[in-house]
């Protein structure tokens, strides 16, 4: 059964349409890379799936049940978690309090505070500190940990590697690979095309609010992706 389906989805910000007739299907346990230039509509797509942006037309279904139009907190409680761009940690909460916020949707599952701490031991050492005092990489660990604490069926990751050291990025992607083997589906939005495709089963390339190319990791062709990404062959 398909975990997530988008059908002719149209969404945007007020009068501005940023997504045009998006069709997309994601299997359970599948990892999908969503690539494209700035302004291609990747973040808007994630925001539409979480309910932060209302679908103007079309449908979003989770395990066959329509979720478009539901409030953000209800969609979260159905098992969709987002690691937002820029992390968006709660500045007046400690590391541990930030992680605990992930449980507010009330879903049970394998992810507990203890497991997050064994995954990222440095967070246990810093658990009483305010989250914003951590380094960028550690903050990203909190953001990923917070999303996992929700025990999601679908994890959406927006620009995980932005501003982080390559070693940290590698660490976080290794964690995500582990998460995927436990049956969680992932959508990974990245500027770093090679990183995203390498971490995924399949990729979709977006441009100007539309999906312009897609394929499996094995058949990913750099020249074709570059053409789709920029809209024409780079000289």
């Amino acid at each position, binding site marked *: 059964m398909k975990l997530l389906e988008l059908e002719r989805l149209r969404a945007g910000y007020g009068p501005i349409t940023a997504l045009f007739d998006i069709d997309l299907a994601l299997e359970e346990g599948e990892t999908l890379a969503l690539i494209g230039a700035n302004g291609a509509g990747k973040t808007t797509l994630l925001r539409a799936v979480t309910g932060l942006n209302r679908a103007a037309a079309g449908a979003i279904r989770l395990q066959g049940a329509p979720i478009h139009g539901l409030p953000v907190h209800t969609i979260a409680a159905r098992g969709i978690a987002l690691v937002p761009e820029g992390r968006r940690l709660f500045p*007046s909460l400690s590391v541990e*309090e930030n992680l*605990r916020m992930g449980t507010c949707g009330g879903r049970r599952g394998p992810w507990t505070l203890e497991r997050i701490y064994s995954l990222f031991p440095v967070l246990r050492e810093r658990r009483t500190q305010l989250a914003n005092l951590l380094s960028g990489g550690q903050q990203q660990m909190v953001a990923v940990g917070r999303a996992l604490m*929700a025990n999601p069926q679908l994890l959406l990751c927006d620009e995980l590697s932005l501003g982080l050291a390559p070693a940290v990025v590698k660490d976080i992607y290794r964690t995500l690979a582990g998460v995927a083997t436990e049956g969680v589906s992932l959508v990974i939005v990245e500027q770093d095309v090679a990183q995203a495709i390498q971490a995924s089963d399949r990729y979709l390339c977006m441009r100007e609010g539309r999906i312009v190319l897609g394929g499996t990791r094995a058949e990913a062709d750099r020249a074709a992706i570059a053409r789709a990404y920029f809209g024409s062959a780079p000289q």
Partner: protein
Amino acid sequence: MIEWLDTLIQGILLGGFFALSGLGLSLSFGILRIVNIAHGDFLVVAAYLGVATVTTSGVGPLTAILMVVPAMGLLGYLLQRGLLNRAIGTSELTPLLITFGLSIILHNLLQEIASADYQSLDAGLVETASLALGPIQVGWLPVGILAAALAVYAALDLLMARTRFGRIVRATVDDPETTALMGVDTRRIYALGMALSMAIVGFSGMLYGIKSSFNPQAGGSQLLFAFEAVIIGGMGSIWGTLAGGMALGIAQTVGYKLHAGWGAFAGHVVFFAFLLLRPSGLFARGNGHG
């Protein structure tokens, strides 16, 4: 010397009431970013609810507190759910205008129902009994109000710092959008925050009705005093409001000692001085205690 010490102690005792009443206002601003212009009128509504409870059920005012506080909390919840939540996400001016309108409505409604006559809540001996601290006499009632205010502050601090509810409230104040992504219905959190604020307003209103007589006009000056306590303490800082209430209480008793007509005026002068010289107040917001 003893005389001035007496003035200082009486000021702190009076400040206990301002701190408590200011807390209701501070909380609705801290959590909801709503400046509740109807704050003083709700305080007076609570006092009238106290009168109604005492006359219909025959219990004393201190027992009536146990009924009025939850009733005011429920009123706050319904007010937020039914009216103020609709204004969230619009301009900052909208909730201000709504509560301004509410203030006028409540004021006139009280006048219509209860007449413009002065009323009071008679709690008996506790209102006049006093305690001798060496040469200084302090009343049991102001001591009780100060103790109650400190207890409410301590309880609120524990609630915000140690509980799941407090954590969710702080997260909502930080970033409502991300809090919703965590599976939290933030509108419900706003409604519970308003309920908490109005329960404290209900408690302050009952204590106000016991310590002084009131009529439907009294809301205006009560709003002003609470507002002064919040601004002197620093807007958005809960513990700042406690300090602001104390500062206002001391200013008023010192003013009163200098001249019988200068009590409230001295408080306004201190408030004005803060607006002019240190508009962020004693404790500028930043510790995150919503």
